């Protein structure tokens, strides 16, 4: 009983002081040389921040550019197969497939005649959605009331040169329309007249034959959406718009590749900065090293001391730097893309491990140099 308690105390004595001595040396080293320690830590923080920001941007740039490319409009088109028409619930089906990951706009077309017998293409559509889908349309005023039409710039010169109301006829049925505004796009829309779908259907009785879809996501996700749409609508042709998809993939791929190279370069530079600062810090303390050695500390203990110190520095720097880096990435996202870059915590372990590795490397390099030197030489100041 007694001897047991005694040996317990002995073990505690044997461990505890050494343990606390180790911690005290670490803390005192940081406090006493706070100028140099702060310099080393700030180098670490800057490097980790820059690395975090670059990794976050690299991971997020794809999503950001996908959003930009959605301004090009539809990337999938659903049309009735030859000799068939789209079912009445086609739009509902498409929307249920898309969920909140895209937008679908129906279009119906007929060739109508103007009062003096000229043919003109008239389209019925959901104008509210067209406005969101095709942002590049340059429109003077969007129709709002009943019998308001959006007239293509070239069609306007034909049907309503002075902006007056006009009549159109389709299969003997005449409709009276007000040109609310004109649209200019530089392609076939300029020769068309757009109406709201309900008015168009009341007048012509023709159902939508085309649904333009802007599906969001990566090329793989859009591919899945196309497959799902084809399954849901067997009577229709679902075509990805290759012009948009391939252009997008190309620009995106090249941008990401450039960004990756830049990220590697910047991270390398940041690591270099840390390396030179930390090496200087450790080298600078060769006297501590020599004194410890002269007092009989083992190589292992001294090595452990510097390694722990470097690892602690790396870890603290990485965590602080991560926070700042996320801030930088968010700021760049806000300034450049007008949308914040969502912080990715998956990057944290990478930054942490990388920082500690660089810190250890910069501690071990001077250590191996110092190990070869006799303590007496260092203490003599040579």
């Amino acid at each position, binding site marked *: 009983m007694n001897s047991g308690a005694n040996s317990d105390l002995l073990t505690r004595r044997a461990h505890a002081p050494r343990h606390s001595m180790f911690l005290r040396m670490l803390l005192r080293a940081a406090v006493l040389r706070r100028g140099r320690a702060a*310099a080393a830590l700030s*180098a670490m923080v*800057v*490097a980790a921040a*820059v690395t975090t920001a*670059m990794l976050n*941007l690299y991971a997020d740039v794809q999503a*950001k*550019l996908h959003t*930009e*490319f959605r*301004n*090009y409009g539809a990337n999938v088109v659903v049309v009735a197969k*030859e000799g068939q028409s789209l079912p009445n619930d086609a739009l509902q089906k498409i929307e249920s497939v898309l969920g909140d990951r895209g937008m679908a706009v129906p279009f119906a077309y007929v060739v109508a005649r103007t009062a003096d017998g*000229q*043919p*003109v*293409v008239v389209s019925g559509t959901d104008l509210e959605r067209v406005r969101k889908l095709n942002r*590049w*349309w340059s429109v003077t005023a969007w129709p709002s009331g009943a019998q308001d039409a959006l007239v293509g710039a070239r*069609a306007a010169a*034909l049907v309503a040169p002075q902006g007056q109301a006009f009549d159109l006829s389709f299969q003997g049925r005449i409709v009276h329309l007000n040109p609310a505004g004109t649209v200019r*796009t*530089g*392609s*076939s829309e*300029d*020769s068309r007249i757009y109406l709201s779908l309900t008015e168009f259907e009341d007048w012509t009785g023709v159902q939508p*034959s*085309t649904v333009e879809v802007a599906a969001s996501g990566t090329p793989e996700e859009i591919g899945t959406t196309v497959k799902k749409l084809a399954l849901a609508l067997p009577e229709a042709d679902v*075509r990805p718009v*290759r*012009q*948009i998809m*391939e*252009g997008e993939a*190309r*620009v995106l791929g*090249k*941008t990401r590749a*450039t*960004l990756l190279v*830049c990220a590697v*370069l*910047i991270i*390398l530079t*940041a690591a*270099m*900065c840390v390396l*030179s*600062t930390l090496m*200087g810090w450790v*080298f*600078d303390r060769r*006297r501590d090293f020599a004194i410890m050695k002269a007092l009989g500390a083992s190589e292992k203990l001294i090595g452990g001391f510097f390694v722990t110190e470097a690892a602690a520095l790396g870890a603290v720097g990485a965590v602080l730097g991560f926070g700042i880096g996320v801030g930088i990435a968010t700021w*760049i996202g806000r300034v*450049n*893309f007008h949308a914040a870059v969502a912080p990715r915590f998956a990057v944290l372990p990478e930054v942490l491990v990388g920082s500690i590795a660089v810190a250890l490397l910069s501690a071990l390099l001077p250590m191996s140099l110092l190990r070869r030197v006799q303590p007496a030489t260092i203490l*003599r*100041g040579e």
Partner: protein
Amino acid sequence: MFLRLVYESFRRQKRRKLLAGIAITLGVGVATAMIAVATDIGDKVSRELRALGANLVVTPQEDTLDLQIAGVDLKPPSDGAYLNEADLPKIRGMFWHNNIVGFVPVLPVPVNLGGGKNVTLVGTYFSRQLKFGKEDFETGVRTIYPWWKVSGTWPQDNSQDVLLGERLAVSLGRKAKDEIEIGGQAHRVAGVLSTGGVEDDQIIAPLAVAQDILGRPGAVRRLYVSALTKPEDAFGRRDPKTLAGAEFDRWYCSPYVQSIAYQLQEVIPHSHAEQIRQVAQNEGTVLSRIKGLMLLITLAALMAAALAVSAAMATAIFERRGEVGLMKALGASSVAVAAVFFAEALLLAVLGGSVGFAGGAMLARAIGRSIFDSQITIDLVLFPIIIAIAVLVTFAGSALAIRRAMKFDPVLALRGEA
């Protein structure tokens, strides 16, 4: 004595000098490469964006309305006006001709394939050799529509061969190398075309074939032009008629999509050129986003490089407090000591900077070649600027360390009680 000090310092402290030198070389190299890439990225991405097709369309001035639904041209061929094919090579003579990536004329003609099946045949250039003055050049859909894929072969522009759209080929039951009768004449199907657009339901033929069917040699319905442009701004949107003198010249000599359209109208008689807003408008936003991103990243890179260089310099000098102490003990003035260090820093910056600049230029070229398949050349004007910045950053990094080294009591420094 001064020179000997500097020389001996380089000779005896190779390790320290090497470390600082590497930091400067790396920093300058990264900075050079990043600046080169960032200044060129707009041009490169703008070229990549041309993969989205033409951004300008030229139509006859007195044209009637298009009657096009889902790729089927319902406009009677007798209707409307035409452009003259002979005018097209003049595009190479306009002010911004180097910015024209390519152009294609189109001539849609309705044809009857027998059995009451009406389809649209579009005459165009595939990869046509043209001559303007003494200059030879090539243009056609293969240049400006990179997403067009052909199984089989592309027809020659001077042949009677045609391409069948993918869906049309399926519904007709034809494939590459078959024959097809169009308007009573047999044509060879060179290949099947897949575009994911309206062309999949059409026949694409050399322009001359379409002109023969229509019976109008030299006729072109529309001309699509793919041009490298500068993102539009408020000045670009101004109406050229309201601009006078120098302002007009500035507008005319900027590659805005509007000014290129204006020049196209000048070289092609009786024409109306307009931007295809879907392509032209969005190009500007995508371009400015990527350029902005690169600019911000370049700033980050420059900052990191500057920090790395100054950290290395500070370390290198701080290690030499003993020397400072010795020099001061021997009676050297602060100015003399600082001069030695600054001379060393200058030498390091110029040497490391030159090597770094060369390395960075090579890196930029490699990036350009491997990512964009084209050169990123670096302007030699940048060389003195970058060296000056390198010297400045090196001095700034050294200054603080030198000041601190100098404040140190020589006695303490010499006793080694750092």
